[in-house]
């Protein structure tokens, strides 16, 4: 891989250990995937923030980097953490966890990463079309490539962090336009209406495609939030990092292989996401983190109603959307729901706060929660979730 004189210096360690490690990561990954050079990025989004997922091992590395003076070169945001420090009454009560989580957030902040802990950084700062990014978090990556038309590979936590410190990423994968062409047309024969059904469609498509790039036919006027759920679930069961919501989108072609998805496929995928039919202890909306529009819909459905005492309703969103949707937050809270930020169901401790059955409209959460959180799941639409949460 070609390196400029400046990049050579960083690689040789002339600017210190932290930048040398970051450069080694980028160059070796570039070699592995046959990149020709490094390219500048607009921003980085870093995963590996929750103490529940990264544990003590990562803290040691982050401490070493931070002590060696590592600082980000571009706008950098980070994924949700394991704790919402503004809602400690809702969180797991172990002082060790609180201390370690706060140390992780502080270490990232010291390196210049904004303490905006969300998987939807694009609701706060939208990168321009055609700009290169180094984003981790698979739902964020697929949203950037497919909805925002910015370009990013599916980075891991360490490679996104290395890119943030250097301000560059190796030029391979979907940074090259020839690797962004659709491979297959998905003809949707089922009638798909709400986010949950879009999520189930994504679960099915991710399972059958692995890393091919799909272009969808006959998705009628999907809303932005529906596409967000479609992408998040496709990226959970497959290695997909980009899709085209319609076959009239550029880069799609009628010469491609076509795969039909019918009502039965959708029904099977939908049903596979429920492991229980027991009444839930918690109803969870906000994976990926809610948009302003989702906050509004939830609030309007809860207007004048009350959440049952035997169930928790958690809504997760970014701090930024929480502020903007302040009136809707009040409506949700007066119905007895909790609006949390900086965290989400998957990366926090659920079993430990007494949750055994989690009901959600998020296919991604329903897919991961049985293994990541060891809870049973009930997968349903937003309307069904709200009905289940409220008193008769």
């Amino acid at each position, binding site marked *: 891989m070609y390196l400029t004189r400046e990049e050579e210096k960083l690689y040789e360690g002339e600017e210190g250990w932290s930048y040398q490690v970051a450069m080694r*990561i980028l160059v070796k990954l570039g070699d592995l995937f046959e990149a020709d050079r490094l390219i500048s990025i607009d921003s980085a989004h870093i995963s590996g923030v929750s103490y529940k997922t990264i544990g*003590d091992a990562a803290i040691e590395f982050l401490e070493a980097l931070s002590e060696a003076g590592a600082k980000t070169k571009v706008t950098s945001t980070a994924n949700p953490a394991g704790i919402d420090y503004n809602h400690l009454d809702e969180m797991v009560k172990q002082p060790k966890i609180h201390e370690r989580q706060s140390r992780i957030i502080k270490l990232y902040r010291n390196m210049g990463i904004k303490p905006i802990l969300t998987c939807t950084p694009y609701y706060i700062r939208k990168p321009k079309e055609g700009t290169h990014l180094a984003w981790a978090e698979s739902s964020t990556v697929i949203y950037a490539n497919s909805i925002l038309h910015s370009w990013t590979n599916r980075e891991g936590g*360490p490679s996104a962090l290395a890119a943030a410190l250097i301000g560059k990423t190796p030029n391979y994968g979907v940074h090259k336009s020839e690797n962004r062409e659709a491979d297959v047309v998905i003809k949707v024969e089922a009638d798909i209406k709400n986010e949950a059904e879009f999520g189930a469609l994504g679960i099915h498509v991710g399972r059958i495609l692995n890393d091919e790039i799909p272009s969808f036919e006959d998705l009628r006027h999907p809303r932005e939030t529906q596409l967000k759920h479609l992408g998040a679930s496709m990226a959970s069961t497959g290695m997909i990092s980009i899709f085209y919501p319609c076959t009239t989108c550029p880069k799609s072609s009628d010469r491609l292989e076509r795969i039909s998805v019918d009502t039965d496929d959708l029904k099977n995928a939908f049903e596979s996401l429920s492991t229980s039919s027991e009444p839930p202890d918690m109803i969870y909306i906000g994976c990926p983190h809610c948009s302003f529009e989702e906050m509004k819909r939830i609030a309007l459905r809860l207007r004048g109603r009350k959440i049952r005492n035997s169930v928790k309703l958690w809504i997760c969103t970014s701090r930024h959307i929480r502020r903007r949707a302040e009136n809707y937050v009040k409506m949700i809270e007066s119905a007895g729901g909790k609006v949390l930020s900086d965290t989400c169901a998957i990366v926090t401790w659920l079993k430990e706060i007494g949750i055994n059955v989690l009901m959600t409209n998020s296919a991604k959460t329903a897919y991961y929660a049985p293994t990541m959180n060891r809870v049973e799941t009930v997968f349903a639409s937003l309307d069904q979730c709200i009905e289940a949460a409220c008193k008769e």
Partner: protein
Amino acid sequence: MIELKGRPIMSGLSRGKALVSRKPLSFLGGVDSKTGKIIEKNHDLNGERVTDKILCFPHGHGSTVGSYVLYSLVKKGIGPKAIINEIADPVVVVGAIIAEIPMVDKIDISQIRTGDLIEVDGDKGIVKILARTEHCT
């Protein structure tokens, strides 16, 4: 002595006993970061320690947090001395880089047996089998 030529991934020279697996390995959830023991279910090395071994396996799999686990093992002094893969994947590559242990890939690891004394040259991408183990595995 047998010499195998591969691709250099992370620089450094290391010598030790080989621990060879036929199965991919996930460092996150697969290796206990407190003991260095392999705990991945149904893994052919389940129960073995990676400590001070030249760890040979086809490739990694699983979460990118695995890179941090490899770092932590090495910094605690209970990690492997070097890594040999058939085909390197990003999680293990990043792990070897941050842990600063030699790594070589594109090696036919079926040539190496657990217990063999081997030398890994991460700069040249060369693996030398210096002495065969007494017993066959």
